[in-house]
């Protein structure tokens, strides 16, 4: 069973700004279309390893970025992915 984590944004501007900030810092992530099970205002999301979500999320918030949500998506067999919304406070406990 593998899990990926996602960050969604209110607009494309913030998605691409996030990419620009993280590239400079050398973070490991990918910009991807938002998975169907996650509801987002903007069609592009940031995907990263769940171990990195806390660091990346905090990094973006410190840079004043507007973030819509943090998600963990589990894939198991043929079942559809299940999105679990994570609050910003949850970042501390990840």
């Amino acid at each position, binding site marked *: 069973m593998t899990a990926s984590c996602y960050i969604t944004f209110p607009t*494309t501007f913030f998605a691409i700004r996030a990419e*620009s900030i993280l590239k400079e810092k050398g973070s490991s992530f990918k*910009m991807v279309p*938002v998975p169907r099970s996650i509801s987002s205002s903007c069609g592009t999301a940031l995907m990263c390893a769940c171990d990195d979500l806390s660091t990346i999320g905090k990094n973006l918030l410190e840079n004043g970025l507007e973030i819509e949500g943090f998600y963990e998506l589990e894939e198991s067999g043929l079942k559809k992915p299940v999105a679990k919304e994570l609050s910003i406070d949850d970042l501390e406990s990840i």
Partner: protein
Amino acid sequence: MNNELNLYFDNAATSWPKPEAVYAAAEKQMRQAFGNPGRSGHTHTLEADRLVYQSRENLSRLFNINDPARVVFALNATDALNIALKGILKKGDHVLYTAMEHNSVLRPLGRLRREGLITASMIPCNAEGYPDLEYLERAYRTETTLLVINQASNVTGTIAPLDQMINSAHKRNVNVLVDAAQTAGTIPIDVKKEGIDMLAFTGHKSLFGPTGTGGLFVRPGLNLAPLREGGTGSQSETDVHPESMPERLEAGTLNSAGLAGLLEGVSFILNTGVEAIRDYESKLRKYLYASLQELEGVTLHGPPSSDQCAAVLSFTLDGADCGEVGYILESTYGVICRTGLHCAPLAHQATGTFPQGTIRLSPGYFTSKNDIDYLVSAVKEIAALAGN
């Protein structure tokens, strides 16, 4: 056209040539990074998104803007000025503007005034194009909310005393909208240092971008009503247009090919340095002014000091119609310029060139001293033909 010379003296209308990278980037965008920015999520869209974002970042660097979200893309300076004026003005507001304003300011204000939404007062300018600052001090009313300043005249090149005018407006809590159509890329602009509330610029003049590009900087804390609403690729489930910048003031597919070119135009400016461009163009205008001044029958309009001007110079020729001089310059000598009224009727009235207009010469960063020598010799021959 003589291949050794650049006989294009109409850079105030649109710049030419552009740096090579501008042409290449616009083509590359259409061939490779062709996605619709903000829509879908595939790789071609992301590539287009990145170009648009980088263009915002580059402009932020050029104008010292902290947050690239405050840079809104528009079709040109006219579009940006319309977004600004119609987005900030409310019923009952009073607006101040200078006599050097372009029709891109005069016409939107004229319509809002005729519809009874606003009142507006003109700050007169002298024959060199400088606004009457004492008049300005007396012109504020309690309902004044905005001062519009053309940073450099497209008729005479006259640079407005921005610092004094902005200080004057801010003392009364009046916002300032600067029209940088003739200055962005050729004169250093620092929105933070100068306290500019809104800056409207075009991409295709001294920023070296393609036509159909331009933008508006809106300082944080200033919330404009959108001129147009529509698709943004975000919050698609609702019929309420997004409130966050820059989407708040942008709707519909952006001109990504144009913006890819603009990105390279601004990169060229950042690499060359605005100060270096300013210094070179100022020297060109000085040389052009001095050379034309020597000629019989030539009357120059605007300030003699090129330190106080953008690289724009207007003249008239005794005994000759402006349009005819322009026609001979192109048909006989291959020299391109603009003649007549330059979409700024009040500026022509202030400088005493209404309604006959002027012959406007606007060299650019790629103009050389040799080009000017050739132009001046052509004007000299035309002046002699006109009986001077």
